[in-house]
Each structure stands twice: as structure tokens, then as C-alpha cells.
């Protein structure tokens, strides 16, 4: 099995998983043509599509594991540490060893760079060391190829590609698994829609409550469309294609947020989500333009036509070639040489590269609801809860993080610094708002924003693997918690306010305890000393450790460590607050409590499945032997790290950043790991204990605290007043300018036009006057004179014959007389 063939198999499996939901979407949107409104068959179709997709993704993951040379990574680690504790408990890797022939082939493949045959030539070069690094950098890890060409202009080419590495596979498996769970959950959650007459109590029309036919099939068709777009985004092999699916997930999210199209609040939220995303996409587009102009390609990976973006910027060894004055970055080809253009080395300005990185990251800001574009996500909770669980917690919003990670090689340290600070601000702002939110879904939404901030922070401080690790673990526990909240909302008949709940754990135990697993996971609680906890503990640990290592190397940026640490405590506090308010204590609204019930099995089964993964996904094969960063999940992700850092990397740009090394047991990150973990755990315990004191044991009345700080409370309840600010800063001005433009057309352009028309009219009026008075006057004068002469002569015409004769006679006589008198003789 050579590299290409493996890639083909993976591609085929993932393509099936990718395209099935699209087929599902087309079928489901016309479901009423061959079924009725009361049938659940559309949901089954959707579940089948995504379920098969999950099977394909999972088998692709296994297949990849079997055909990947784990030895490369392992050998290096062994070489570095001779550390027997690096266990290879990875079943898939083990099975790779079971087939030595395969493994050897894989080694060969690993040494063969992606441009066919080029590797061998290069191997003939003298740099053995380089080759080693190269294989480390990207060879053998990614499979890529082209589906079909979109356009070709001279040397410029755009196509739909695929790019498969362990990150792609992890994302595929995670997305399809969670989506399958959520599809199943939604069958139960959306069953109200299985009716001819759905009454919506939130909408009032001129004749009472609003009622409409149920839209069960449409919900599932949108979900399928979303799954298609999301998977396409993950599979994309070039940044342009990412942008395409980026927009498509945006529109799916628009459709799903605005699913209750009759609710004004829902359609407003949908518009807000899409437009704020477009603001981010505006930046994304600028990034695309810069890369397109200076690099001439969008490809991630090398192709036959030339090197891909990653190789251009980072070369084969993961190191940027910056000019001596730090203003230019030289582009490199697949052999580690500089690209040339007309004899001059191709390069891109360092600042341009910063701008490109920030532009692409602006897209991530929009999609992942980071500061300052975070306000759309809480409003997006207008959508049905399964949507919030799938789109707005686990997958789409994480796509921003995914892209930041995928595009990591192109980011220079200055961009990473911005990413880190954006993440840092976001995680703090969102967490503080979550402290005072009372809508159960909004608390979760702010918590999502905050956790995404953590991931961004991790990527920004160089903790590539840590950020993605958190992405995966967060996807499990956050979608779990959203589904739990959905279960609560469904059980309480669409009550979402936590102050009206309380004590629900007695009525809905499965929901309550699966939720508790999620809460513990996100808070990062663990058993001290043993360091055994749920997934969130490990991933947050990794992030805090990266941040600590970073701030130790760059003491100026100490905030990047303190803020997440403090926020870890806040997170624990507000998550336990949510759990205590909802499930613990005494019911505060007896009516809600009395009518509340546990959800049916179709809804609780996904909860249980997700809670198992939320708890265990970061563990090793045996709990004792390596969890967290030594566990299979992290190792799989880290396997794809495009810019590995076994040593510290110093930036040559203006910001003078030093990125910590984070691979191996002597890395900066590993050194501070224990310390960071302790601090984070301490913060988490403090936060949880505080929450118990206030909301669990009710020793302190939260209202007292609120009264102590009324202004701070109002400020937080108003969500730091971002909405007000944006309304004043952007929405109003846009309306004003648009009114100006429309007015300009009417008042200026048209007026000029009309004025010229009027001038023409005036001129033609003069023309008419001249015509009428002068020209016509002359002509008329001639006519009038003739006529008056005629009138005066007509008296002669008497009509009397005899008179005429007389005149003739007289005339003759006169003529003769004249003749005789005047003619000369």
C-alpha cells in the first residue's frame, strides 16, 4: 500500500461521509412530496445519512491508524528521552506494527514528500538532517488531492481539494458522532413539530396565537445541510475552499437559528449571526487576497503545479526564512529552496503576512464568536436547542479554532500574539457575563464563547495541540450540556429561566447526572495528586501549562497566564451555579416542577453516550497509563502538528516573541506542567466551592452580593453593553449612509438630470417663442397682406355682367387713350 492509495481510500470514505448529508438534504427538503407531515421518516433519513457518515469517518480513522508510521514520532521521542514511559498503547498503532510490510511501506511513504518523486531526488542531496526534519514536518502525515478544478487562469488555478491528516479525521469522527447523537436527540425534541397544526405561543397575530403546519422534515433537512457544509469545511484542501464552506456553514446556521421564521427575535438573531460573520469574512477575504496575490495559490499542500502555502511560508523544515532586516519572508519550494521569479527571490512582506494572518483570523473571530464579534452567539440561542448543541457549541463555532489551527503555519508570532490576546479577552468577558445570565441556554452560550477563547489562547501561545485537544473535549461536554439543557427545556415545557427551576434532579435524574458529568468536565475538577479527572481537566491543564510557559518566556505578557487561570475559577463557579440552580435545592416554581418530566429514551440515550465520552475521551487505554497529553487523543492530534517545536522559536518580527517548545519531556511546557495543573485545579476547586456555598448550601444569598455591586451587575447583565455600542457605532451609521445614498440619487443626481431637462425645456420655449413671433410673424404678415389686398379688391368683383362689359369697354378706351397719348409716334 503506498501513500497515494491510502490517501485514495481515506478520501473515498470521507467523501461518502461528506456527501451523504447533502443527498439527505435534497431528499428531506422535498420530503412532503412522498410522505406526510406526521411521519418521522425524514428524521430517519437524516440519521441514516449522518450515521453512515460516522461509520465511514470512524473506519477512516482506524484505517489511517493502521497505515500510519507511528514509529517516526515514537523513534524521535525515544531518541530524545529513552523514556520507557512513553507507552504505545495505541491500538491502531499497535495494529500497524502487526503488519510489518505495511509499516515499512508507510515509512517509505513517510519519507516521500507529497510531490511525486521529488523526495527521492532530495534524498540524494546531502542534507540528511533536513530530510529527517522534513519527514517530521509534514511528509507522511497529510494526504491530499484534487476533486475537480473550479477555474484556471494562466498559472493561477482554483480547485476543490481534499486534505486529510489526523486532525481532519479527528474532526470528522467527532462531528459525525456528535451530529448523530444530536440527530437522535432531535427526533425526541422536535416531535412537537409532527403535526398539521403547530401552535406557537410566543407569536401573536391579529387573530390570537399563531399556528402553522409542523416543519419536522425541514428541521432535519437543515441539519443535514449543516453537516454537509461542516464536513466540507474540515475536508477542504485549500483556504479558498475553507472559505466556501465557511459561508455555507454560516448560511446553515442562519437557517437553523431562524428556524422559527415567524418569531421576530429568531429572524433578527439569524440576521445578526450571518452579518457579524460576514464582518469577520470581510477580514478573511482580505487575508485571501493577500495570499492570492503574493503566493498565487490557496493550496495547503504541495501539488504537481507547485508548492502549497504551508511549504511556501514554512519550507520543508517548518522554519520561516525571514530576510535580515526582518521585512521580507522568502517563499520556499518543496525542496527547501527559495522560489524565484525572474531571477529575483519571491518574497512576501513581513507586515503583509501579518495582515494576511490577521485577516484570516478575523474570519475565525467571527465564526468562533470571539471578541469583538462575540455578540451574535448568545442571540443564536433562539434556534432549537439541538441546533445550539450541534452548531453553536460543538462544531461550527469550533471551526474558527479549527481554521486557526489548520492555518497555523502561515501565522507569524505577531499574529499569534493577537490571537492569544483576543482569546484572553474573550474568555474573560464571556465568563463574567455568564456569571449573571439566568437563561440556561445563554449561560451555556457564554461558556462556549469563553471556552473558545481558551482554545484561541492556546493556539496563540503556541499550544497548538492543547487548543485542538480542548476543541475535541469541549465538543463532547458542551454538546452534552446543551442537550441536557434541551432535555430540561423540553421537560419543563419551554421554560428556560433558571430562577423558575430548582430541584429537578428528582424529576429527571438521567439529565441531571449526565449534566453533572459535563459540569465537572468543563470546570476541570479532578482528584488531586492522582490527577485523574474528566476530559476537560486534561485539556484545560494543557492550555494553562502552555500559557504559563509562554508568559515565563515573555514576561510582558503575563496576563495571558493570569486571566485564564482566574477564569478557570469563574468557569467552575458559573457552571456549578447553573447546575445547582437547575437541579439542586427546592423547586422555586411549583407549577413548572409539577409538570416537569424526564425525557424519553431517544433523548436520554444520546446524553449517556456523550457523557461517557465527555468523561473518558482524554484518558489512556488504561486509566493509569497516561491520560491527557500522553493519551491517544492528544497524540493523534499532535501527530499532525504542522509546525512542531522541539526548541524555542524566537520571532524576528517587531514583537520579539519567543514561543515555548512543547514537544517531548524536556520542553518548556512540560517543565511547568505540574505547576500549572496545580494552580488550575486550585482555581477550579475554589470556584466550585464558592458556587456550592452560594447556590448549593445557600449560606450566602446571591441577591445580597448583587445589591453590593449594582453597577457592575447591570454592566454584566447588559453584556458589557456591546450591543448598544454596535448599534450606535455601526447599525445606525449604515442606515444613515444608506439614506444619504438613496437621497443623493433622488436629490442630486436626479435633480441634475431634471434640471438639465428643465433647461432644455426653457431653451425650447425660447425657441418656440422665436418661431412663433419672428418666423411665423413674417410668414403671417405676407399672408395677411395678401388677404387684405384681396378683400379690398373684391368690391370690384360685383358679379354684374353688364358692369364688367362696361369696364372692359372703358378699359379698352383707356388703353387706347394711353397708347395714343404716351407712345411715341
Amino acid at each position, binding site marked *: 500500500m503506498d501513500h497515494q492509495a491510502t490517501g485514495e481510500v481515506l478520501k473515498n470514505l470521507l467523501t461518502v461521509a461528506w456527501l451523504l448529508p447533502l443527498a439527505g438534504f435534497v431528499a428531506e427538503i422535498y420530503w412532503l412530496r412522498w410522505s406526510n407531515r406526521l411521519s418521522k421518516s425524514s428524521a430517519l433519513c437524516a440519521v441514516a445519512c449522518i450515521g453512515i457518515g460516522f461509520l465511514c469517518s470512524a473506519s477512516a480513522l482506524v484505517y489511517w491508524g493502521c497505515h500510519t508510521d507511528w514509529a517516526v514520532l515514537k523513534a524521535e521521542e525515544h531518541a530524545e528521552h529513552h523514556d520507557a514511559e512513553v507507552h504505545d498503547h495505541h491500538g491502531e498503532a499497535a495494529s500497524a506494527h502487526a503488519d510489518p510490510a505495511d509499516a515499512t511501506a508507510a515509512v517509505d511513504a513517510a519519507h516521500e514528500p507529497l510531490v511525486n518523486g521529488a523526495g527521492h531526488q532530495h534524498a540524494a542531496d546531502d542534507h540528511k538532517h533536513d530530510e529527517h526534519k522534513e519527514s517530521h514536518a509534514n511528509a507522511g502525515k497529510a494526504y491530499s488531492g484534487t476533486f475537480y478544478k473550479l477555474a484556471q487562469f494562466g498559472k493561477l488555478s482554483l480547485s476543490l481539494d481534499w486534505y486529510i491528516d489526523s486532525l481532519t479525521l479527528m474532526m470528522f469522527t467527532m462531528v459525525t458522532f456528535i451530529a448523530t447523537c444530536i440527530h437522535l436527540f432531535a427526533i425526541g425534541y422536535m416531535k412537537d413539530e409532527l403535526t398539521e397544526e403547530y401552535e406557537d405561543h410566543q407569536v401573536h397575530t391579529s387573530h390570537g396565537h399563531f399556528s402553522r403546519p409542523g416543519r419536522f422534515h425541514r428541521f432535519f433537512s437543515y441539519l443535514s445541510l449543516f453537516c454537509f457544509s461542516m464536513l466540507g469545511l474540515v475536508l477542504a484542501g485549500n483556504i479558498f475552499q475553507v472559505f466556501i464552506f465557511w459561508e455555507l456553514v454560516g448560511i446553515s446556521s442562519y437557517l437553523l437559528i431562524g428556524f422559527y421564521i415567524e418569531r421576530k427575535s429568531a429572524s433578527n438573531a439569524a440576521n445578526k449571526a450571518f452579518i457579524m460573520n460576514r464582518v469577520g469574512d470581510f477580514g478573511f477575504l482580505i487575508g485571501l487576497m493577500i495570499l492570492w496575490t503574493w503566493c498565487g495559490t490557496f493550496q495547503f499542500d504541495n501539488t504537481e503545479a507547485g508548492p502549497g502555502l504551508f511549504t511556501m511560508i514554512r519550507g520543508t523544515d517548518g522554519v520561516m526564512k525571514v530576510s535580515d532586516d526582518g521585512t521580507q519572508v522568502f517563499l520556499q519550494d518543496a525542496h527547501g529552496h527559495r522560489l524565484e521569479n525572474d531571477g529575483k527571490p519571491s518574497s512576501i512582506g513581513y507586515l503583509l503576512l501579518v495582515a494576511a494572518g490577521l485577516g484570516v483570523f478575523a474570519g475565525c473571530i467571527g465564526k468562533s464568536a470571539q471578541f469583538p464579534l462575540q455578540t451574535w452567539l448568545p442571540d443564536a440561542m433562539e434556534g432549537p436547542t439541538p441546533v445550539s448543541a450541534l452548531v453553536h457549541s460543538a462544531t461550527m463555532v469550533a471551526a474558527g479554532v479549527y481554521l486557526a489551527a489548520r492555518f497555523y503555519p502561515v501565522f507569524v508570532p505577531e499574529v499569534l500574539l493577537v490571537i492569544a490576546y483576543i482569546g484572553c479577552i474573550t474568555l474573560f468577558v464571556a465568563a463574567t457575563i455568564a456569571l449573571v445570565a439566568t437563561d440556561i441556554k445563554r449561560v451555556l452560550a457564554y461558556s462556549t464563547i469563553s471556552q473558545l477563547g481558551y482554545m484561541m489562547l492556546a493556539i496563540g501561545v503556541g499550544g497548538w495541540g492543547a487548543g485542538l485537544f480542548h476543541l475535541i473535549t469541549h465538543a463532547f461536554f458542551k454538546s452534552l450540556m446543551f442537550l441536557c439543557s434541551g432535555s430540561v427545556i423540553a421537560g419543563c415545557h419551554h421554560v428556560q429561566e433558571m430562577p423558575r427551576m430548582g430541584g429537578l434532579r428528582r424529576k429527571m435524574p438521567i439529565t441531571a447526572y449526565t449534566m453533572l458529568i459535563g459540569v465537572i468536565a468543563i470546570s476541570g475538577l479532578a482528584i488531586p495528586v492522582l490527577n485523574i479527572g474528566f476530559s476537560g481537566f486534561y485539556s484545560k491543564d494543557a492550555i494553562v501549562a502552555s500559557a504559563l510557559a509562554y508568559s515565563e518566556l515573555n514576561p510582558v505578557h503575563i496576563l495571558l497566564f493570569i486571566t485564564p487561570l482566574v477564569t478557570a475559577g469563574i468557569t467552575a463557579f458559573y457552571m456549578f451555579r447553573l447546575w445547582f440552580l437547575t437541579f439542586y435545592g427546592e423547586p422555586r416554581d411549583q407549577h413548572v416542577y409539577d409538570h416537569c418530566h424526564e425525557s424519553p429514551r431517544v433523548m436520554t440515550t444520546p446524553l449517556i453516550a456523550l457523557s461517557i465520552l465527555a468523561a473518558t475521551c482524554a484518558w489512556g487505554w488504561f486509566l493509569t497509563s497516561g491520560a491527557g497529553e500522553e493519551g491517544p487523543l492528544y497524540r493523534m492530534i499532535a501527530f499532525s502538528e504542522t509546525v512542531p517545536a522541539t526548541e524555542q522559536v524566537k520571532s524576528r518580527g517587531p514583537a520579539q516573541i519567543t514561543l515555548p517548545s512543547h514537544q517531548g519531556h524536556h520542553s518548556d511546557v512540560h517543565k511547568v506542567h505540574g505547576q500549572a495543573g496545580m494552580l488550575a485545579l486550585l482555581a477550579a476547586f475554589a470556584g466550585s466551592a464558592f458556587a456550592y456555598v452560594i447556590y448549593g448550601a445557600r449560606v450566602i444569598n446571591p441577591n445580597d452580593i448583587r445589591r453590593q455591586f449594582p453597577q457592575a451587575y447591570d454592566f454584566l447583565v447588559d453584556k458589557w453593553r456591546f450591543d448598544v455600542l454596535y448599534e450606535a457605532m455601526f447599525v445606525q451609521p449604515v442606515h444613515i449612509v444608506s439614506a444619504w445614498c438613496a437621497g443623493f440619487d433622488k436629490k442630486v443626481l436626479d435633480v441634475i438630470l431634471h434640471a438639465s431637462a428643465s433647461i432644455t425645456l426653457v431653451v425650447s420655449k425660447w425657441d418656440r417663442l422665436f418661431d412663433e413671433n419672428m418666423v411665423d410673424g413674417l410668414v403671417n404678415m405676407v399672408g395677411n397682406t395678401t388677404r387684405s389686398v384681396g378683400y379690398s*379688391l*373684391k*368690391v*370690384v*368683383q*360685383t*358679379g*354684374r*355682367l*353688364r358692369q364688367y*362689359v*362696361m369696364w*372692359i*369697354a372703358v378699359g379698352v378706351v383707356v388703353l387706347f387713350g394711353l397708347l395714343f397719348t404716351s407712345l411715341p409716334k
Partner: protein
Amino acid sequence: MGEVGLEAYLFVGAVLFVCGVVCMATKRNGIGVLMGVELVLNGANVNFVAFSRYTPLGLDGQATALFVVVLAAAEAAVALAIALNYYNNHLTIDVDRGNELQG
């Protein structure tokens, strides 16, 4: 009896002409007017013939006279027809009654 000179013919012609003109001018009867016209024409004829005889004009004058005779006949025919029509319209042939052509 001496040779009759040109003047005599011209005198007769003039008398005829004047009679004719006076007749045309005074007669109210349409037929009378016609008769006056005949007199005028024939007065002219006399002159033509006379000039033809006494001047080097030659036969041209006589030929013209013949034409005038024919013309007079034709004129008489047309004029009589007009007179008839006139009578039909006015139940008289008094030319003074017909002043429709007055300006």
C-alpha cells in the same frame, strides 16, 4: 363710285364693335348680351378681313376671321347652354339677377 378705302371698313367694324359693346352693356336679356358678343366678334372680323385686303398681312387675316367665326359658333353653343342652365336656375335670363360671383 370711287375705291372704298380701308377707313370705311374700319369705320363699319368700329360701329359694329361699339354697337356690340353697348348691346352687351345695356341688355339685361342674356340672349341680347350674346347678340352683342356676336356683334363685337364680327366687328373684329371685319377689321381682320379689311386688314387682310389692304395690308401685306395676306391671307392670315382671313384665316383668323374664319377661326373667329368658328369660335363664335362654338361660343354661341356654349353660351346658349349656359343660358338654358341659367334659366333653369333662375327662371329668367336676366343677367342682372345672377350676381352669385360677387366678391
